[in-house]
């Protein structure tokens, strides 16, 4: 399946390293066990990407159902309940199960390569993040069993992606749907925080010699900022979710009016997380664009320090604007004004990025390949989305736009025209590196145009719909409000978009198996990942590179002799230190995540017993907790042990060393 598996050195049989008697590592390099126990950041990245793309198609399918329902007024294609479930799951899936993990796939796969590292700082923690993400995704979607098998009370979440209290309380959502939503997000939060801690340490501590912070590729910078945003914003939603959960299960009154609670508090806690979250979705995309534009313009990024700094200020300001989602909650004049101004301020650092991207194009030799098409599409579409964002920030005007299709238009422009376009660009861009094959230009560009046109036809009319008073989250509308035509056009557009996406992914899948094989450094890249063979070997770098310039690989290509000498010297030194150190695979992170899954199933699927004793709810929760504990315990006892490999001149592994401890 995975191309990394096929790489030459892995065909080499591994010697069973000397193991402590009872501490054998249930791990493998191949087959299912190989995937479950992998700690290789590239394989983990691949799995993230695979799951993310599957969920993107699921979310897209849900979107198409939404659009079908709205095709004509008073349509009865879907029931109201199903529709409400659909947009909730669509939003949640797209944000948490598609865009975030797809970004994480690139963080995992590309970032360590860009900084010249052999792996992330904590490989097993990385595996834990992956499997916990999968557990969260399962819990979030497990509610579909209800409607499909007709089980009462078990539905997929239907309280909207920001689950405003008190709609999520036991009174108004008596079934289990909201529990799935809470626990699903809770696990995804754990996964994201763990992964981000790992990325932060990796970027700060695992850089190759000479890779100073101000030489980091911009994508790596954006990874760092995104990781910061995640570790700093997710705690708020975690606590908020804990609070609703307690309200639902233990009769507390955080958001219960009868006990003196204020439902508005939920909105604050949610958006303190929620706004940074949207920058979590866009910063990786901006990073990808900042890699693609220079490569295809064959020029360094224009104004690198400012682009980096603007990323930081977007991230920082992102924490000071959360209430712009609450302009209509009657915060009072001063608060509204403060948040309106802070929100507008974000347009400045974002604009800086746009300007610098244009500066990068200026005077370049622009190669108009598929990734570049998507990247340019991104710049255009994101700009439009950004402008409607600024229109929202004018609070009195937002009173008319809030919760209307104008908002839907705004955020699909930034999310699809922004995040998704960039991620699709990134897939094409790094595909040759990841899998050693390349997507056909013709089909790539065709899919771009179909997607681009479909996207605009779908979402541009939504601006008009919103201004014409169409509220969002409505499963039906009357024919006398002037919304019919625009809705019909939007629906047709979404079908075109669907066709475009289908083309894109069929082409991608085809290329994965049958695409044209290409040589190393296919795009004539600038950053370190392109110095590797494709697909990159398990150990990434034969010799840890020494970095001399911001565009490290570009520099290497222009100073071949100097670099060759240097590398030879370093190779000797490394060999003297015992060769390349590789971590053992481990099953324990998977076990720990499995335990969390069991806990979540216990908490969500069963109701508390009224009679004393241990019911399935408490029972499963305890069992799950125990499994997690066992997982973590063995994980910590195992220690970060590994083995050494040695390479011959062609990069073939000549010997697997004995195990050692670090």
């Amino acid at each position, binding site marked *: 399946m995975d191309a990394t598996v096929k790489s030459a050195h892995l065909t080499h049989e591994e010697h069973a390293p000397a193991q402590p008697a009872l501490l054998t590592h249930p791990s493998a390099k191949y087959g299912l066990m190989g995937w479950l126990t992998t700690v290789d950041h590239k394989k983990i990245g691949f799995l993230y990407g695979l799951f993310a793309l599957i969920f993107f198609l699921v979310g897209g399918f849900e979107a198409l159902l939404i659009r079908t329902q709205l095709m004509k007024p008073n349509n009865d294609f879907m029931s109201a309940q199903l529709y409400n479930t659909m947009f909730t799951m669509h939003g949640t899936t797209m944000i948490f199960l598609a865009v975030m993990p797809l970004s994480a796939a690139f963080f995992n796969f590309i970032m360590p390569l860009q900084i010249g590292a052999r792996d992330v700082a904590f490989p097993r923690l990385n595996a834990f993040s992956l499997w916990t993400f999968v557990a969260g995704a399962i819990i979030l979607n497990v509610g579909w069993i209800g409607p499909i098998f007709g089980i009462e009370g078990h539905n997929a979440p239907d309280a909207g992606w920001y689950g405003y209290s008190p709609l999520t309380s036991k009174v108004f959502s008596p079934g289990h749907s909201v529990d799935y939503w809470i626990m699903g997000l809770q696990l995804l939060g754990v996964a994201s925080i763990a992964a981000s801690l790992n990325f932060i340490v990796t970027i*700060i501590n695992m850089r190759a010699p000479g890779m100073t912070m101000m030489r980091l590729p911009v994508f790596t910078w954006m990874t760092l900022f995104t990781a910061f945003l995640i570790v700093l914003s997710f705690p708020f939603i975690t606590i908020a979710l804990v609070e609703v959960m307690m309200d639902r299960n233990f009769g507390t009154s955080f958001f219960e009016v009868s006990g003196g609670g204020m439902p508005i508090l939920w909105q604050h806690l949610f958006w303190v997380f929620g706004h940074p979250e949207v920058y979590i979705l866009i910063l990786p995309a901006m990073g990808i664009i900042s890699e693609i534009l220079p490569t295809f313009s064959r020029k360094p990024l224009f104004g690198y320090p400012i682009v980096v700094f603007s990323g930081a200020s977007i991230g920082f300001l992102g924490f000071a604007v959360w209430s712009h989602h609450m302009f209509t909650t009657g915060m009072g004049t001063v608060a509204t004004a403060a948040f309106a101004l802070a929100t507008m301020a974000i347009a400045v650092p974002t604009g800086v990025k746009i300007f610098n991207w244009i500066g990068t194009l200026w005077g370049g030799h622009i190669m108009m390949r598929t990734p570049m098409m998507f990247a340019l599409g991104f710049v255009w579409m994101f700009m439009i989305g950004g402008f409607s964002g600024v229109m929202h920030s004018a609070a009195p005007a937002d009173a008319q736009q809030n919760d209307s299709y104008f908002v839907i238009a705004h955020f699909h422009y930034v999310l699809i025209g922004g995040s998704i376009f960039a991620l699709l660009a990134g897939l094409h861009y790094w595909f040759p590196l990841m899998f050693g094959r390349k997507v056909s230009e013709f089909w790539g560009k065709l899919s771009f145009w179909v997607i681009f046109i479909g996207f605009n036809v779908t979402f541009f009319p939504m601006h008009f719909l919103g201004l014409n008073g169409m509220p969002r989250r409505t499963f039906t509308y009357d024919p006398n409000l002037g919304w019919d035509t625009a809705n019909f056009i939007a629906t047709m557009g979404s079908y075109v978009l669907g066709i475009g996406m289908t083309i894109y992914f069929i082409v991608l899948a085809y290329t994965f198996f049958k695409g044209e094989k290409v040589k190393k450094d296919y795009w004539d890249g600038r950053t370190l990942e392109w110095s590797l063979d494709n697909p990159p070997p398990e150990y990434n770098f034969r010799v840890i590179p020494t970095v001399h310039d911001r565009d490290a690989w570009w520099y290497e290509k222009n100073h071949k002799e100097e670099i060759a000498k240097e590398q030879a010297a370093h190779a000797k030194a490394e060999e003297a230190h015992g060769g390349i150190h590789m971590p053992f695979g481990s099953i324990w992170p998977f076990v720990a995540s499995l335990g969390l899954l069991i806990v979540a199933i216990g908490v969500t699927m069963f109701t508390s017993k009224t009679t004393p004793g241990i019911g399935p709810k408490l029972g499963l929760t305890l069992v799950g907790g125990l499994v997690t504990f066992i997982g973590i315990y063995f994980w910590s006892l195992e220690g970060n042990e590994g083995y050494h490999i040695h390479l011959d001149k062609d990069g073939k592994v000549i010997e697997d060393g004995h195990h050692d401890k670090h």
Partner: protein
Amino acid sequence: MSAPAHAHGHDDHDVSKFQIYVQIALLLAVITGVEIIAVYLPFAKWILVTSLVVLSTVKFMFVIFYFMHLRWDKPFCTVMFFIGLVLAAGTMWGLLALFGAEASLPLPT
């Protein structure tokens, strides 16, 4: 106290570190005592609040800089922690200010 030096004969240093830790622990205990007494003193509320906040901050700083060795560690650790600390404090301040506003009064019951 000198900057971290790679001293080798470390015995006397360790003794002094031990002493420092104990002294700080004592100091923390004393400050706590002062705080507990302070709340019963008949001063204006703002004076008390300010002094409580200041005293707690002092305790806080002593723990992170000495017990948690920020003082001897690379400054980057301090930066890292303070990003979270400052952001958390700022957000708390923001939330309290928002809820302190008249518009946020809950309905009378």
